[in-house]
């Protein structure tokens, strides 16, 4: 089987499909039409530019350049994660950045080196796509988990202080909130895993099959991709919460002001 390339005319025809959701966003007066059009334009331009960049990245195939690229991705992902929560940048940015970077390195090196058995784990062709897949999933899970954890902790301080006041360690007192954050952010992952291949055909597998890979190989890769995305989401979440906790509680376990001023003003 060979790769069937898409022509630019074909791509344009595909993008025309977006007119359908645009129409309903306008028809139902959702106020989301502008954002949706802008999002589509941004996505198209970004992907085309990344395509050009990746071509050079693959051509150079230098481990240091690839690691630098991974760090840039971690910075952008951390910035995106922080801007989608109500928490102060000073509280969350470094924990998310470190969480993302450490996780991606560990999981990608394990997958490429141990599972795939590659000698060159930082080879652009393998390293860059795997890093990209991991970042995408970690971002979604982290944003949801951090919002739930700090949102509930802030709303239900009475409960947190009740536990501390009855002898709980800080870990025990934050455990109900951590539990809730993990349940809410991981439930979609678990549900997706459970129906994989029956209800949903994931992008990685479809992409490989359309790209000419035989289904058996594509399925094996999909299985591993599903595993490493769940592992990396959990690991990055644990690191982010553990590191951000150092900045959100003082030595007495008091919850410090973690939300940005404008959000506090909105809440009042």
């Amino acid at each position, binding site marked *: 089987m060979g790769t069937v390339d898409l022509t630019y005319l074909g791509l344009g025809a595909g993008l025309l499909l977006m007119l359908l959701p645009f129409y309903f966003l306008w028809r139902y007066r959702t106020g989301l039409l502008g954002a949706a059009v802008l999002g589509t334009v941004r996505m198209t331009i970004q992907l085309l530019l990344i395509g050009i960049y990746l071509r050079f990245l693959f051509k150079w195939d230098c481990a240091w350049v690839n690691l630098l690229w991974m760090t840039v991705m971690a910075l952008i992902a951390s910035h995106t994660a922080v801007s989608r929560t109500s928490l102060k940048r000073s509280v969350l940015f470094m924990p998310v950045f470190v969480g993302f970077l450490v996780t991606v390195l560990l999981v990608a090196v394990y997958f490429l080196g141990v599972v795939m058995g590659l000698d060159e784990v930082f080879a652009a062709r393998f390293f860059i796509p795997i890093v990209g897949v991991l970042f995408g999933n970690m971002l979604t899970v982290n944003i949801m988990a951090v919002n739930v954890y700090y949102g509930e902790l802030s709303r239900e301080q*009475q409960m947190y202080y009740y536990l501390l006041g*009855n*002898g709980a*360690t800080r870990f025990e007192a934050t455990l109900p909130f951590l539990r809730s954050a993990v349940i809410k952010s991981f439930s979609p992952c678990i549900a997706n895993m459970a129906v994989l291949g029956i209800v949903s055909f994931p992008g990685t597998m479809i992409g490989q099959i359309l790209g000419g890979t035989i289904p058996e190989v594509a399925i094996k890769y999909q299985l591993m991709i599903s595993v490493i995305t769940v592992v990396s989401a959990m690991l990055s979440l644990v690191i982010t919460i553990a590191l951000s906790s150092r900045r959100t509680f003082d*030595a007495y376990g*008091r919850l410090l002001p973690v939300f940005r001023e404008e959000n506090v003003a909105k809440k009042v």
Partner: protein
Amino acid sequence: MSEILRIERATLQLGERTLLHDFDLTLNVGEWVCISGESGCGKTSLLRAIMGFLPFQAGTVRIQGTELSAQTVEQLRKKVAYVPQELFLPAESVEEMFRIPFGLKANKGKNITSDKRQKVWQVLGLNEDLMQLKTTQLSGGQRQRILLSMAVLLEKPLLLLDEPTSALDAESVGRVADLLKEVATDARAILTVTHNHHLMDVCDKLITI
């Protein structure tokens, strides 16, 4: 008399407002002290500061002789049972509600037999059938008395209670007073923030701030 709680020359501020200045309080074994005062005068803040949830700007707090500091706070909180105002624990059933404080590492060794619980519940007028109920089926008064019973059964040297009778009728307030009198004699000390006149009348000492 052995001392459970000593607050010396404490100053407590919330923002620009000074709630307490040069405040002293000593609580001995077997003593039950009530704190009263107008709303917003700092009663709840005082309880929270004793547990280190709010900082005293000056002065010291000692629980059983150990001074409250960042190093000792966790150890001191193990000596306290605390009931805040209006708390909804995330538990489906009353049984699960009990497991929350008793499941903590600091309270794992507490031997809470159903005999002990029944005895406390009897004084508080709580029916044994409540144990089988879901927490959503409880009234505000029942929930408040159950939380109080949990604090008592933790058998800590110091009980800090914030408005423990705010949702109770006169008869239940009397029962709570009976229980607290009995508990105080059992080598423990109780500090209660309250607006309730009956509790103020029957406690050992009333401090108005």
